[in-house]
């Protein structure tokens, strides 16, 4: 099975939908995504893994490159709706904090709303100073 990638922006950040298998054969296909998000200076990146059937260390390393990119831009990478196999790999490696992996869209939305509010409040404080 191949890998399908889709990038969309919405109010919450940049959503990268990953579908298929992200392994040593398909991981190089993530490179254009990295370049695209680098150009966009993406801060909040959501990896939608609801249709990612299989993840190996080669694929996880590509995800971690996106995590570094988001953090370098002052943002964060979160993972949404991992399938059981993806969740198992994440649980073993522990490269992504548990509180940045969301089992449902509702959980993710609540978290991102909180993040947005935090950023807004922080900006308000800066103005006040």
């Amino acid at each position: 099975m191949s890998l399908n990638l889709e990038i969309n922006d919405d109010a919450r950040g940049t959503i990268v939908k990953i579908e298929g298998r992200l392994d040593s054969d398909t991981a190089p296909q993530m490179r254009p995504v990295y370049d695209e998000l680098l150009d966009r200076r993406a801060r909040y990146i959501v990896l939608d893994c609801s249709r990612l059937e299989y993840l190996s260390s080669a694929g996880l390393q590509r995800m971690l490159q996106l995590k570094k990119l988001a953090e370098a831009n002052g943002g964060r990478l979160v993972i949404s709706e991992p399938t059981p196999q993806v969740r198992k790999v994440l649980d073993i490696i522990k490269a992504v904090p548990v509180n940045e992996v969301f089992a449902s869209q509702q959980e993710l939305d609540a978290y991102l709303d909180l993040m947005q509010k935090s950023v807004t409040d922080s900006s308000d404080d800066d103005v006040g100073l």
Partner: protein
Amino acid sequence: MDRPARSLEYQADDMDLEAVSRGLLEDAADAGYRDPALADLRLIVEEVVTNVRKHAQAGSEPARIEWWVGPDTVQLRFVDGGIPFDPRAPSDESLQAADHTTGKMGLLLIRKLAQSIDYDRQDGRNELTIVYVPASAAPATGATRP
């Protein structure tokens, strides 16, 4: 019913992951294995052959994977002529951020998914034997799974 061992030779420096794992996964499926066991087996094979490729030496003989599928256990044996490489070490299982390389993450996955791992160096070849037991077939205590 137990099945006889099967094997496949492949070029370590030019391997097709899909092709290397296909026979094993077909045999395991025929024997009644389903996900997550099939995904575990695929992951173990990918992580091992990726390491074999990394440590391959130019001009070395083809690498080989052998598999034996039993009702509750799958035994895998990987043989390659690469530089000596014992995947059991180091034993540290708490990777720091700097350790998040494909190789180290792959080794951790193998150690966590395998029931047992044995390594030997014979006649200039790495010989790695991995026993996999699906979680549903593991003893109720769970004490044997690393």
